[in-house]
């Protein structure tokens, strides 16, 4: 890798966009999982009362 390349900005942008997009979609999946688990537990504990 030539760190002085004039196209380094484009390469960095492509890797940055990839990282952010994949991290965002993974975060969204796990956030939804946590939310659903919380709702399910809340509902089940309510049913138990």
């Amino acid at each position, binding site marked *: *890798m*030539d760190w002085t*390349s004039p*196209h*380094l900005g*484009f*390469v960095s*942008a*492509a*890797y940055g*966009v*990839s990282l952010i*997009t*994949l991290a*965002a*979609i*993974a975060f*969204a*999946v*796990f956030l*939804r*999982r946590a939310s*659903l*688990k919380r*709702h*399910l537990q809340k*509902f*089940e504990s309510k*049913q138990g009362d």
Partner: protein
Amino acid sequence: MIQVLANPNRFLKIAHAILPFAWAATALCFAVGLYGAIFASPADYQQGETVRIMYVHVPAAWMGLFVYVLMAIASAVALIFRHPLADVAAKAAAPLGAAYCFLALATGSIWGKPMWGTWWVWDARLTSMFVLMLLYLGYIAIWRSFDDPHRAASLARVVALVGVINIPIVKFSVDWWNTLHQPASVVKMSGPAIDPSMLWPLLTMAVAYTLLFLCLHLTAMENEIMDRKLRNSRLKSIEAR
């Protein structure tokens, strides 16, 4: 095998057993793939360092196509066999496929500016990929537009099955039309036309993207099963009042 996975609890048990290994393999493949892409592979004699964008662009484009085919197969299975998890699999795959498709378009555009001198051209490959993105968004919108999941599923299956016609158009657009986008250099009848020093990081990144999809898809399917369980439990409790 399909019948074995028809039971959501059995499916979840299998998914939980697979996921730790799949996450470990994903991390390993990304580490090796990124090392190969950034440090080990050479610069291209024409493209220079911008060739490194290929290692994130091409696997994303492959996954964009692969996930849509998977959705179409799952929709066909749901339609023909009434498999209880087929719709779940298709619905859970859609946002992941849309993300990969977006990545293919975005990284392709970033590559296009220094190489073609423009961010975007309406050539056959780029346009058909953009149509694929719209199909993903339409599919997701259908699931969100209906309160009744059965009605949403019926329409979503049709969109997934009709939309799959776009996949060969994307793949062969570079052969059928005169495009600015270069023709296939890896998946072709005469074998890859790419040097092994560039091929191995590309294939490793493709495996990493596929494993990441597997991990996220299994987790998203688990979410969907939980969501359905919660919805059914709420409906039952309302009916019982």
